[in-house]
């Protein structure tokens, strides 16, 4: 294929990407972002994980070590499948805190410390520079592959020139679309869309080559598997240490690599997209890896020995005469390399400008925060950083000569960025992690990584002398770079990962445990660890002490996030406070919001520093923190006490209501009692008056006089009896009764009662059934009173039992220190609804005059029994009227006292 066709295709493709990015930026600025906000674009943008290292290097790796290349994709698969653990929290924190890069995340978490930001930035730049060089190398290599096979004598521009052209083109693209504006949130819609398009191109290209290899050359999938199975190479055996270690390393890398953090967290437009990406991104990786092994096996089989396996994706179709397929593969590789470089450059440039250039500039010119064109300065810093990062990559490529195998460089970069992992995970899950711990861990890990992996990778004698490599630092045997502390049986990569992370974690833990975090750190720590607890996210503390004019703040905000954005932010805040105009009150929540907004452009540390410059450095102290905590605790305690008091009040109110009801009832009862008693007294009085008037007139026959006198006498007796009863009742109710406690025989008491009550309706003959042996009980009680109760009950039976052959059964039982005496007749009994009434005063049932009582008998019985420490109740369901008397066997002083106490209450 003519080389210039290749160059033309390449340029056309690049132009296409420019157009895509441009159109998307235009539409995004007009607010039309529907497609851009889809989870598909998010997932595809994540595919920058697959760089040229994947596209070309995976085949090379598979050819050299068999299945080991899969580990690089299995780690991310596990992380994404387990997104509920880490990714969800990272994205939430990133969105809430407006994190602009991984350095910003670490710096923001540990008290907006710029030192940590610088440290992470340095690690990222050092680790990523070879990686960017690698991408440039792969593009130049792929160009040279075509140049070699082209029949024409088209002069291949020299290697460096190609790399320079590519780097320049990438710088242009990145500056154009990466620094067009300073967003409140560092998002680049045009670039995201462009890399999504490139993701499709590289997937299609690799699948196309794979399908051609499996079905065109390998004879179908089954034959292919057999072929792989039959392939024997001692290097292909899985090494357990590397297998597990690389899965871990790639899992760590997928969340710590600056470019992955950029697309995963910073460019995330919607948290919900993550749930789709949790399986879609592993599926993408799956598809990318599916044909790697077949391509490697067929390539090893068909290509002449000594071919660079890293370029087989390209050289295999070329050798088989598939020019178009090779061109597609070339575009795929080109896409992989360029998308990685673009995003990595943006991510690194953001870090460099936010954490190194801007703070340095503000330090050199402190008055710049108050005046001057900040926006322009920041954008300039961004652009310079982009050029610097790319220049570093290019320089590394030119110096190193691009000889090392692709996979090795990638793994070194992974191991370098993995040093951020302890500080990151510790920061989002452990509130105890401190600035000192993170600084210590990061520096120790970084140094160990550099000493054991990065520097030796240049080759013996290049960065580390062969002498040190052989005998250890300062001649100390246990400080050999590839056998630290005598561990010389390990694979160099695993050795480095193991020791760097182990020392890193140890430093982080020790530093955190031994130091005390400052207030900002503690606030940030709480906000990060409790990212899902909305209540704890409320602004609890902020800029409360210093003074600044709202105008000055607005002026500064305008110079950072732009006139329109700043004005609308201030206006919205003012409206939220209920104020008209553009200048809100400087409440802590407004200031915190403003700081977050600025942090979205310049990073948390710089934003914090700038505001504190306006505020005269009056930020919070530990004492403020404690005061707020105490205040909150006091409020909580106060409200708890209020709650308690309220409960008490409502309890009292309930009791009062009950008492009131009882009083009302009593009042009604009293009225009823009075009217009853007047009625009861009035009836006999009326007849006495009437008959005595007749008698007073005289002139009556003697028999009449005697008869009337008898009536008057009877009525007077009835009155007396009624008054006696009333008196008795009132004495009993007041508990003023004097009890005469003696030891008495129950049977004899019943005998007495029966004898007395036989006076009532003596004409009736009652069959009394008793069980004499059971009555052989001596009771300690007031015998006269008890007999009174018995008489009343027996008389009632005599009065009201309507049976023709009346039977009264008296049964006695002992039950746990109490005696139960039942009086059961065979009459009609008492209707159910009347059973509750019969013990009330003046309650008479269907009184047809036979009884002649006032209806106080049972009421008196009840009071007597209460005084005797017992009860009298109606016993339902006995086929007749039945009353049960229960009383204690031995009534003693204690019972009486208790009763007295109850009475008093």
């Amino acid at each position, binding site marked *: 294929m003519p080389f210039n066709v290749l160059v033309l295709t390449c340029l056309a493709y690049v132009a296409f990407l420019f157009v895509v990015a441009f159109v998307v930026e235009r539409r995004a600025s007009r607010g039309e972002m529907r497609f851009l906000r889809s989870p598909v674009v998010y997932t595809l943008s994540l595919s920058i994980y697959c760089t040229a290292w994947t596209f070309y290097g995976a085949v090379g790796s598979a050819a050299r070590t068999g299945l080991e290349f*899969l580990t690089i994709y299995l780690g991310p698969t596990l992380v994404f499948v387990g997104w509920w653990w880490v990714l969800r929290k990272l994205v939430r924190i990133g969105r809430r805190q407006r994190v602009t890069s991984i350095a910003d995340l670490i710096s923001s978490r540990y008290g907006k410390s710029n030192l940590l930001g610088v440290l992470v930035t340095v690690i990222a730049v050092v680790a990523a520079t070879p990686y960017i060089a690698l991408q440039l190398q792969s593009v130049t290599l792929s160009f040279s592959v075509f140049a070699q096979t082209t029949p024409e004598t088209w002069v291949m521009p020299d290697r460096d020139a190609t790399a320079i052209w590519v780097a320049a083109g990438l710088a242009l693209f990145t500056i154009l679309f990466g620094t067009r504006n300073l967003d409140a949130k560092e998002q680049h819609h045009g670039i995201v869309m462009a890399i999504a398009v490139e993701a499709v191109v590289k997937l299609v290209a690799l699948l196309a080559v794979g399908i051609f290899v499996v079905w065109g050359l390998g004879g179908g999938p089954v034959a292919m598997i057999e072929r792989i199975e039959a392939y024997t190479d001692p290097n292909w055996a899985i090494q357990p240490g590397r297998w597990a270690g690389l899965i871990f390393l790639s899992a760590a890398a997928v969340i710590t690599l600056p470019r992955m953090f950029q697309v995963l967290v910073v460019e995330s437009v919607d948290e919900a997209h993550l*749930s789709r990406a949790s399986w879609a991104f592993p599926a993408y990786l799956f598809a990318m890896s599916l044909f790697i092994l077949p391509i490697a096996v067929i390539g090893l089989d068909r290509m002449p020995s000594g071919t660079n396996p890293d370029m087989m994706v390209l050289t295999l179709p070329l050798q088989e005469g598939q020019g178009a397929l090779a061109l597609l593969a070339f575009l795929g590789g080109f896409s992989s390399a360029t998308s990685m470089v673009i995003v990595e450059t943006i991510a690194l440039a953001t870090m460099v400008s936010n954490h190194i250039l801007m703070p340095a500039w503000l330090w050199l010119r402190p008055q710049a925060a108050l005046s001057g064109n900040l926006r322009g300065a920041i954008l300039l810093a961004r652009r310079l950083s982009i050029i610097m990062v790319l220049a570093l990559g290019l320089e590394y490529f030119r110096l190193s000569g691009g000889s090392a195998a692709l996979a090795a460089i990638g793994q070194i970069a992974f191991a370098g960025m993995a040093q951020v992992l302890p500080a990151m995970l510790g920061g989002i899950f452990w509130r105890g992690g401190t600035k000192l711990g993170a600084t210590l861990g990061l520096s120790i890990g970084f140094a160990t990584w550099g000493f054991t992996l990065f520097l030796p990778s240049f080759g013996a004698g290049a960065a580390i002398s062969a002498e040190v490599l052989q005998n250890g630092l300062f001649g100390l045997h246990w400080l050999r770079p590839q056998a630290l502390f005598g561990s010389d049986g390990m694979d160099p990569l695993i050795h480095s990962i193991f020791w760097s992370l182990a020392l890193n974690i140890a430093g982080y833990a020790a530093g955190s445990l031994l130091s005390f975090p400052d207030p900002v750190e503690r606030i940030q720590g709480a906000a990060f660890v409790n990212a899902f607890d909305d209540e704890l996210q409320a602004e609890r503390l902020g800029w409360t002490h210093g003074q600044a004019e709202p105008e000055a703040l607005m002026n500064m905000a305008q110079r950072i996030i732009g006139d329109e954005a700043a004005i609308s932010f201030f206006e919205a805040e003012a409206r939220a406070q209920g104020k008209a105009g553009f200048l809100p009150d400087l409440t802590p929540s407004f200031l915190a919001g403003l700081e977050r907004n600025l942090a979205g452009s310049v990073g948390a540390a710089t934003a914090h520093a700038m505001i504190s410059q306006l505020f005269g450095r009056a930020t919070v102290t530990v004492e403020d923190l404690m005061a707020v905590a105490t205040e909150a605790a006091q409020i909580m305690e106060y409200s708890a006490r209020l709650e308690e008091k309220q409960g008490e009040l409502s309890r009292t109110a309930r009791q009062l209501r009950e008492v009131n009801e009882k009083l009302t009832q009593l009042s009604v009862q009293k009225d009823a009692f009075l009217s009853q008693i007047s009625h009861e007294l009035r009836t006999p009085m009326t007849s006495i008056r009437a008959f005595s008037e007749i008698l007073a007139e005289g002139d009556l026959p003697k028999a009449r006089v005697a008869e009337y006198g008898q009536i008057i006498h009877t009525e007077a007796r009835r009155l007396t009896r009624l008054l006696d009863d009333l008196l008795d009742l009132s004495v009993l109710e007041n508990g003023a009764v004097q009890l005469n406690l003696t030891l008495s025989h129950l049977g004899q008491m019943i005998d007495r009662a029966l004898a007395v009550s036989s006076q009532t309706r003596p004409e009736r003959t009652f069959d009394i059934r008793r069980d004499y042996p059971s009555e052989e009980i001596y009771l300690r009680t007031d015998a006269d009173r008890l007999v009174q109760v018995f008489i009343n009950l027996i008389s009632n039976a005599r009065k009201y039992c309507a049976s023709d052959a009346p039977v009264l059964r008296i049964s006695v039982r002992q039950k746990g220190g109490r005696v139960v005496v039942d009086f059961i007749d065979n009459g009609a009994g008492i209707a159910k609804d009347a059973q509750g009434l019969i013990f009330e005063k003046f309650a008479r049932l269907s009184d047809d005059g036979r009884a002649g009582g006032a209806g106080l008998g049972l009421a008196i019985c009840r009071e007597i029994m209460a005084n005797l420490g017992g009860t009298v109740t109606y016993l339902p369901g006995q086929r007749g009227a039945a009353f049960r008397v229960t009383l204690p066997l031995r009534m003693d002083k204690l019972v009486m006292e208790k009763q007295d106490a109850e009475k008093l209450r």
Partner: protein
Amino acid sequence: MRRPAAPLFLARAVYRQRRLRDAARLLPIFGFFLLMLPLMWGSAAGAGRVAVYVFGVWALLIGLAAYVAPGLAQPEADAQQPEDA
């Protein structure tokens, strides 16, 4: 001011959702376990068989994640209404 205590018993839907989250948390551990198994096969297994196994596990993990993901993305149902039983 005092935060309401978490309810002791949850409605069925919320209960299911919480268990789904547990499943999502277990998934990577389960996957890691399965991916470590080939290490114990020794050299008897050729690259082809291991590759088929690893890709099988991979596809299984993707399938399970895809099955679990839609339920996880839902906001938690109203937990304030306990259900009988």
